[in-house]
């Protein structure tokens, strides 16, 4: 047994590292965190026509996400109700029906059982097919082309769940009139680390960048002027946001360009400058272009156009599914520049990706130690310096990008869910916390 209150103390910035290794905690996470939260399923551009489908996971549960005849999207467990085989074994495609490859039970694209082989002879026509469709994901929400799903009827609406993070999410999702598209196909790889290291870093950690990625900067940019630019970006002021377990952090950039994707992408940004400012406002367009996590495991990096889900695979393993995202209808040269930027930096062999993975897997290795597992971690950076609505940026904000406020926020939400509090109780607690912060500020 474990007591969550002993394990993470966000108000003190203390973390017991057994939360990254304990198999019992991991099982509790599947039930209390993942099965109760809104999880990213798919982007509109991945399901172009009726019958378009993809396989993904909600934590460890395999699900099929399918475009319906009426244009809506359904998702259901990719598990045959006969003896549990994966109903569909293709990663993605277009389907008219899904036939289980074990004994051939067949389901339509809405996830209804439509045929069982030898229904008359073997089942004596006594099976009620309407009762044996796969488990449906009961709630799916389309947020600006991003489909999220939850198993939990009690969970708040997606907008409520997102809360103030919507403003930061929109800086990515709402940037262009034509919207975004994902480069087809997820890039997938497995690393031996707990999912929270990755989710937390994308929510909250700009601090590692000048150290972990210094050799990467040297390798990528010969030109000392560009290197100076990267150094300048880190020296410039920045902000961080934390709310509902989500996090976003960024530097306050003086201009949209130069972008790390290079001159061809710069040309596109300059051409669309008015459009971007009109949609987001100049301040948000320039600032909110950094690291992000929507709790629990959906993250993106604006500067590298990479988006990913950290699928948990046991306490010590992550299956990373990552996509490059692009402005739809951008000129081919701009798209190419953007894709290359993603591949060079954040992909299985990306310069920065491998730096990050090395840290997480090494930390996980160290935690094999009996003593190491019982030695408390420090997550106190910026503790007590939280503010609210700084510069009109909504929610709990910090006046610097070098802080661990969003990490503490993520562990707070994690602990609330892990303690078995109802969503109602969590909402009330959060309200009280917010009132205290507001009182402190005024």
């Amino acid at each position, binding site marked *: 047994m474990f007591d969550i209150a002993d394990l993470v103390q966000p108000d003190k910035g203390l973390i017991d590292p057994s939360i990254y290794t304990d198999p019992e905690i991991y099982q509790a996470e599947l039930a209390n965190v993942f099965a109760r939260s809104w999880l990213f399923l798919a982007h509109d551009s991945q399901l172009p026509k009726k019958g378009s489908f993809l396989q993904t996971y909600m934590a460890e549960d395999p699900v099929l996400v399918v475009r319906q005849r009426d244009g809506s999207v359904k998702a259901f467990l990719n598990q045959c109700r006969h003896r549990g085989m994966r109903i569909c074994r293709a990663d993605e495609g277009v389907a008219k029906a899904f036939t289980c490859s074990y004994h051939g039970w067949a389901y339509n694209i809405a996830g209804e059982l439509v*045929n069982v082989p030898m229904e008359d002879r073997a089942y004596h026509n006594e099976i009620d097919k309407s009762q044996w469709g796969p488990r449906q994901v009961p709630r799916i929400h389309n947020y600006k082309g991003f489909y999220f799903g939850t198993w939990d009827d009690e969970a708040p609406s997606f907008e409520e769940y997102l809360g103030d993070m919507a403003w930061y999410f929109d800086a990515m999702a709402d940037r262009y009139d034509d919207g975004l598209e994902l480069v087809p196909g997820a890039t997938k790889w497995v690393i031996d680390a707990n999912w929270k290291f990755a989710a937390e870093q994308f929510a909250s950690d700009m601090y590692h960048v000048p150290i972990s990625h210094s050799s990467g900067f040297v390798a990528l940019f010969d030109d000392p002027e560009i290197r100076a630019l990267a150094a300048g970006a880190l020296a410039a002021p920045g902000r961080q946001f934390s709310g509902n377990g989500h996090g976003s952090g960024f530097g306050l950039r003086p201009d949209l360009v130069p972008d790390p994707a290079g001159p061809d992408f710069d040309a596109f940004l300059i051409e669309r400058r008015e459009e971007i400012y009109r949609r987001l406002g100049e301040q948000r367009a320039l600032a909110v272009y950094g690291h992000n996590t929507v709790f629990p495991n959906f993250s993106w990096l604006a500067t590298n156009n990479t988006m990913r889900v950290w699928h948990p695979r046991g306490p010590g393993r992550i299956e990373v599914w990552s996509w490059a995202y692009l402005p739809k209808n951008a000129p081919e040269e701009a798209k190419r520049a953007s894709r290359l930027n993603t591949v060079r930096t954040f992909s299985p062999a990306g310069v920065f990706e491998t730096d990050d993975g090395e840290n997480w897997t090494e930390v996980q290795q160290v935690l094999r130690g009996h003593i190491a597992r019982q030695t408390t971690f420090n997550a106190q950076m910026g503790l007590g310096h939280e503010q609210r609505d700084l510069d009109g940026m909504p929610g709990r904000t910090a006046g610097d990008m070098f802080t661990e406020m969003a990490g503490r926020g993520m562990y707070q939400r994690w602990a609330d869910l892990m303690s078995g509090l109802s969503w109602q109780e969590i909402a009330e607690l959060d309200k009280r916390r917010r009132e205290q912060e507001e009182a402190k500020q005024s």
Partner: protein
Amino acid sequence: MSTSWIRACGIDDIDDGEAFRLDTVPPVSVFRSGDEFFCLDDTCTHEDYSLADSWVEDCTVECPLHQAKFCLRTGAVLAQPATRPLATHEIKVEGTDIYVRIDREREEHREEEHREGAHHGAA
């Protein structure tokens, strides 16, 4: 048994590679492959599935359940696991309207011929 022509649908009701199902008993479907239209029984002869919701290509229809394939011109089985052909029905296009004639007696006669043919072939 009706042997008169009935209007099935308009040519614009069916895109290339799609089919339009009529709720006759048993149901039939009008299939479109390129600019050709065909009328056949709708139910796959293997298990139980509506071929209106299947893959239509190059004058064939492939059932998505277990990939049986039929010729849209003759109804013949082109790929297992189905073994019995699909009944075909008369079809004509007048202007933008598609008419079909479903004559089950004619079919039974044809099926008999098919069975005898198979028998003779085996002997």
